[in-house]
């Protein structure tokens, strides 16, 4: 089954445009990132590998602590490692700036 997780982080910085990176393939994930008018980053994770909520929380908290961007982020995951997720997040930010 697919596990859906949601996270929210306070954020203020704007991004210029939306971004799409990654792929839903084994060990990988797809990210859709869009500028948000709200003063926060709201994240939805849908993953086919359940039971890793704390890991997701750690990776996302670290990213949004460094980049306080007001965005809506969707992640569709097929068992990406934290390192791959972190890399995809940086790629998405790069594209959105």
């Amino acid at each position, binding site marked *: *089954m*697919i596990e859906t997780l949601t996270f929210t982080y306070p954020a203020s910085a704007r991004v210029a445009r*939306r971004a*799409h990176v990654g*792929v*839903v*393939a084994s060990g*990988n994930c*797809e990210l*859709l990132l*869009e500028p948000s008018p709200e003063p926060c980053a709201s994240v939805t994770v*849908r*993953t*086919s590998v359940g039971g890793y909520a704390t890991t997701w929380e750690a990776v996302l908290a670290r990213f949004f602590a460094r980049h306080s961007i007001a965005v809506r982020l*969707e992640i*569709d*995951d*097929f068992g990406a490692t934290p390192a791959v997720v972190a890399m995809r997040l940086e790629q998405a930010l790069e594209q959105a700036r």
Partner: protein
Amino acid sequence: MTPHIGDSYAERNARERAQALLDPGTFREVLGPFARLRSPYLAAQGVAAQSDDGVVVARGTLGGERACVLATDGRFLGGAIGEIGGAKIAASLELARRDAERGTPTRVVLAFDSGGIRLQEANLGLLAIAEICDAVVALRAHQPVVAVIAGRVGVYGGMSIVTALCNEVIVTEGARIGLNGPDVVETEAGADEFDASNRPLVWKATGGRRRFAQGHATALVADDMPDIRAAVEEAFARNRSFVAIAHPDFPDPALEREAFLRAYGVTP
């Protein structure tokens, strides 16, 4: 875009392939990732969905002419076709036919990389493939329909049938075209029939070089974007209309397996 060694087609993802096939700067995606057309059937089966359902519909120009590239993403569920992706392809082919009938033709390139019908959506995929087959034949009455089979997956199942309906098929040596994947034949008939782990045999029997020699592909090119683009241009320039699928010559199928394959030139 990520850098590509030697400007490889296979190294690119579906979106990048479509971009590279179209004239520079003309790529425009219809129903792209932000349309969020994710298959709702996958979650119930524990499978993650993708925002474009694995099919890219790219508009632009090709050799200056209106064009549409339909590219499947072989990395997502092996590029297999479900309801949404199948509808994207079928609808695009229909729109291209409408354009041809209006006198404003749209060139269509099928950049397929697909294992066939998505098992998780089974009969919805089957219905879509039937529509796609019909649409290819209908479009072919107006203009050549060009397939580029040069990805990592190749084409199998329903998508190999669609490919066989095209009158121009461009392949690379790394491409494979077959109805049943070697692993499926092995599962159904045993390793004595088809040993899927025997890579040289798989390519010798179903690879791009063989399909070109058999006349199933109309061009065999290197995995290099300029070569593939040139082959696509040539395919449209030939402007070949319908080409009948003739009953091929082959050795006596009652021959014992090894003898049949030897007689047919399949000797890994």
